[in-house]
């Protein structure tokens, strides 16, 4: 017969759950249905916690978009970073590097992005997205329409702001705008063809953001007369 009582076993419960099982504890458990029930319940809780652990999810894309806008507003992100030892795997600067290389990150870019994010978040909503896919798809369609209209307005402002700028730079910016517009058209086509495809929708938002950033830089250049 076990010398251990229920309270003593309870004090050793966590050790038991971690696999430290003394002979006395084993003997007590053999005799005590109450403590066997307790151990079974603890196992059930732990197993269910394991199931819960397997259910991980990525945060929605807008979390990073908002975060990035905040980082830009606070000046934590800098466009021109002089890394001591550039890595061989560094992301190539790409097609507008030559034009914007010397331009400090425009404050207006953050403002534009923030405005766009606000519109998109307000119209789609993260909870809605997760709770009701079809409603989110409709929301996406509505909000992309709004974003598109906002961008058209922003484009008009940016182009007029560039009126006094260097014609060569202006021409280059218009070329780049055309590239982004083509990208947007491609993404919009993808979303129309596969409205339920979340990746396609993400790319479309991404394309809009790229255009917003470009327009912001155009406006900044125009305002600064560069």
């Amino acid at each position, binding site marked *: 017969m076990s010398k251990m009582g229920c309270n003593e076993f*309870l004090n050793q*419960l*966590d050790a038991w759950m971690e696999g430290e099982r003394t002979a006395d504890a084993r003997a007590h458990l053999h005799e005590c249905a*109450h403590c066997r*029930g*307790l151990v*079974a*319940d*603890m196992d*059930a*809780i732990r197993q*269910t*916690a394991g*199931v*819960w*652990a397997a*259910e991980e*999810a*990525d*945060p*929605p*894309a807008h*979390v*990073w978009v908002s*975060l*990035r806008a*905040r*980082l830009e507003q*606070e000046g*934590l*992100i*800098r466009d021109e*970073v*002089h*890394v001591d030892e550039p890595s061989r*795997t560094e*992301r190539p*600067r*790409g*097609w*507008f590097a030559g034009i914007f290389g010397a331009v400090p990150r425009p404050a207006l*870019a953050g403002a534009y992005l923030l405005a766009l994010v606000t519109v998109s978040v307000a119209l789609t909503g*993260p*909870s809605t997205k*997760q709770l009701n896919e079809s409603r989110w798809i409709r929301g996406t369609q509505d909000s992309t329409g709004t974003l598109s209209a906002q961008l058209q307005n922003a484009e008009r402002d940016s182009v007029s702001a560039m009126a006094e700028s260097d014609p060569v730079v202006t021409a280059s910016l218009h070329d780049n705008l055309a590239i*982004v517009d083509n*990208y947007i058209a*491609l993404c919009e086509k*993808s979303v129309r*063809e596969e409205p339920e*495809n979340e*990746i*396609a929708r*993400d*790319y479309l*938002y*991404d394309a809009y*953001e*790229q255009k917003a*950033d470009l327009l912001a830089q155009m406006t900044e250049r125009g305002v600064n007369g560069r």
Partner: protein
Amino acid sequence: MRPTHRIEGCVPTGSVARTRRIETGEVPEAESIRRAQQGDAAAFERLYVLHSRRVYSLCLRMVGNTAEAEDLTQEAFLQLFRKIATFRGESAFSTWLHRLAVNVVLMKLRKKSGKETSLEQVTEPDEESGTPRRDFGAPDLVLSGSIDRVNLQRAVEQLPPGYKSVFVLHDVQGYEHNEIAEMMGCSIGNSKSQLHKARMRLRDLLQEELRSKAREDRRAAGSASGSEG
């Protein structure tokens, strides 16, 4: 047709939700930290991609609400990036980040409960003695086979913040007590004690839920047989 590439050089904003499609082996974490300390946007994004899933999941489990979890995830990363210049690598970056995230969540939970209390104070008075409550009079209901993730999540939401944090960090997120102690700024013994109390309280809550369900079933069965008669 789906676009399969990004326009190089454009702002990578918004691409992070597609975490799994980003090749995470590209730049070592230490290099990303170093670059982020210099304000490199791509490095910030990469650190976010590497850790956001785990931080968001932690926040979601702690608050049980997607909108709040998103806010908390953003707040945790914002605090991290504000302080990243001070990171010297004494502790693992992920531990540092998770400590920040846990503190952000705890602060939120404390504000919600209207208390500005320390971790040690967020337990309940009847369990401060360290001896878990036992109710030998109540009939035991077997939880095994009767509970699922939804039951557990509901019960976890009812735990005091301190219990909840330790339970989620240990039994769900898989941290060891020494890591939890470091994250939460408490002793290892305190972490173990909180976990023990959390599990016992969860058992009580889950059993109570089963009893309520059994009572409802009996009532429904009674009213069904009454209407037949």
